[in-house]
């Protein structure tokens, strides 16, 4: 299977750092990812592994004193890490939109929901017309599009809901409104940061269905950040498992789920409860590591049941594993583990 479409978004060796009192923390450490049109990529890992930081880096919204210290982010081949603030603002919300975790705190409490959706259209001049004082119909055109998007994301009685405030919405409706803000400008890429974590299970399923529909109908590529491997397995066609700022395993969803190679991925899979199966959930022992004091070598080695002494040394590359070869979208199924190279120390 070859994928002829050129990559929409490419992260090349992306490194994002935050200076702290105990030294510089690499929240994202040399991440490589490729996203093509219509793909859904899942970015999975425990809290604090850097998955949300990847999304914020893509949008250039890392809050100071954090910064992108290295690597490139290519949007349709153009490096967007070097853009000016103004050029970057033209991309935010238009080419790349983001959905956040907690819908209530993400909507501005002081403005009407409809106006918040309309703002996206106005900021990017999506309904162009004659210049300012002469364009009487602009608001009406924008409002029409807002109602269209609200219906598209399944907000019933959009006309009345346009004039409601965020606190008058239910959690699910708030998340739909947020998705509507994201979709208003028909972005090429949707970044979703734990979009269902704050919602009830039934609402979760509806939101996931909605995102799948958006993906299928408009070919919007999606990066879904989640700590829920089960959700990612169901929704994404590619998975990248992150640990301590690095990708430890990446590949097509089927490969990663059916044939996990990294001990961390295996551990995550053992944490997923299955309906109808009487099996104890086995948590991964230990805690998420402190990024300021990472061990040498494999960051997972202190918690790894397969760890040997040599795991503490050197740097391990992502190695091709599995059967689907390098064509699987992100260079095939690869994992970063010494176990996969028969405990040989890398050269140098």
């Amino acid at each position, binding site marked *: 299977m070859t994928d002829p479409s050129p990559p929409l978004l490419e992260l090349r060796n992306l490194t994002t750092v935050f200076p702290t009192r105990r030294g510089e923390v690499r929240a994202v450490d040399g991440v490589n990812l490729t996203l093509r049109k219509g793909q859904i990529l899942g970015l999975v890992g425990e809290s604090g592994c850097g998955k949300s930081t990847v999304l914020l880096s893509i*949008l250039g*919204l890392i809050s100071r004193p954090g910064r992108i210290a290295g690597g490139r982010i290519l949007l349709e081949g153009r490096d967007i890490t070097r853009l000016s603030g103004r050029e970057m603002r033209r991309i935010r919300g238009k080419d790349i*939109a*983001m959905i956040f975790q907690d819908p209530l*705190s993400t909507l*501005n*409490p*002081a403005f009407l929901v409809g106006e918040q959706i309309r703002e*996206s259209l106005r900021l990017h001049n999506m309904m162009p017309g004659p210049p300012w004082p002469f364009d009487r119909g602009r608001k009406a055109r924008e409002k029409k599009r807002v109602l269209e998007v609200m219906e598209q994301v399944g907000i019933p009685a959009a006309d009345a809901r346009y004039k409601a405030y965020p606190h008058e919405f239910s959690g699910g409706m708030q998340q739909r409104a947020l998705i509507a*803000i994201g979709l208003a400008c028909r972005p090429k890429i949707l970044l979703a940061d734990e979009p269902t974590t704050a919602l009830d299970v039934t609402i979760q399923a509806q939101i996931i269905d909605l995102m799948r529909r958006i993906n299928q109908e408009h070919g919007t590529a999606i990066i879904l950040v989640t700590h829920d491997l089960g959700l990612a397995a169901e929704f994404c066609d590619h998975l990248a498992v992150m640990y301590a700022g690095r990708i430890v395993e990446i590949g097509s969803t089927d490969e990663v789920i059916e044939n996990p190679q990294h001990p961390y991925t295996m551990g995550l899979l053992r944490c997923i409860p299955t309906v109808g199966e009487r099996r104890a959930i086995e948590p991964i022992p230990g805690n998420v590591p402190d990024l300021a004091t990472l061990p040498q070598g494999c960051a997972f080695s202190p918690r790894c049941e397969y760890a040997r002494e040599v795991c503490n040394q050197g740097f391990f590359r992502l190695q091709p594993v599995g059967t689907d070869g390098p064509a699987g979208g992100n260079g095939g199924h690869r994992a970063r583990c010494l176990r996969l190279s028969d405990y040989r120390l890398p050269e140098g």
Partner: protein
Amino acid sequence: MRLVKVVERLLAAIPIMLGVAIIVFVFMRLTPGDPVDIMMGQGGAVSEGEIERLRSEFNLDKPIHVQLGLFLADLARGDLGNSFSKQQPVAKLIGERLPATIELAFGALLFGLLIAFPVGILSAVRQNSLLDRLSMGGAFLGISMPAFWLGIILILIFSVNLKWLPVQGRIDYDANLQEVTGLYVLDSILTGNRTALVSSLKHLILPSISLGAAVAAIVARVLRSSLLEILRSDYIRLARAKGAGEPRVVLVHALRNALIPTVTVVGLQVGVLLGGNMIVETVFGWPGLGRLVVEAIFNRDFPLVQGAVMVYAFTFVAASLVVDILYTYLNPKIEL
């Protein structure tokens, strides 16, 4: 429906005002010092009969609950009584002085807000910058400097040395201003009197700065801290993710929400400005309510003090009502 609630709130103010009336009435009579003694002391030798006559004229010979009843009965008819020391209706005396106090309070508020908003916003946006440190240091000074001291320093610099601005009073004698509302700046505009406008504005500048410095400092600090908190919130991140520029993020998305705590503080300051500026009025020879009240307290002029306190209480009630109404516009979750 908002109007109905406003009327409800105004009606709810009646028991508050009644409580204030009773408390000030009782406390004035508990303070040592007798109004008739004080008046007679100024008049020299007087007979017992004269004193008795005055006491009965002011109803001071009756039991306190009878006096209170008479006071409240007058109050219900809108009559604040007659001043003991000035022999004139209290309402008239207050009416003459109130516009000066309102004009000064407005000037001080305007100065305070004109300083507080840019300073508060810029120091929040550039947190920990030199500008932030300087303006927060300045705010600390603004809060700790006594207004009378600042007033004297300003008079020294701008009136005595530079001779740019007048030392005291509200307007020059030769301005020939025809009073309409008693607010001289407004009256000058209404009557088209350019000389009077310039003169009244010049007189207003220094007292407004002396009184408004503390307002500027307090409001700037509140605005800065609430903006700082809001700028870290999720909806600000969304505004940026939508592609909004920083000015829009700060001035539209953040400021609207930061105004909620700020408006509370400004409302309280309005009450303070209208009620507590006797010192600045004295420094600048400003013929406002504050000086009238201080005199009235020294003279144990019960009706005048009672009337003035009623006015102060009403301004606080009105200011908090205005704040609550503004709240409903700023925060849609709040209803009156």
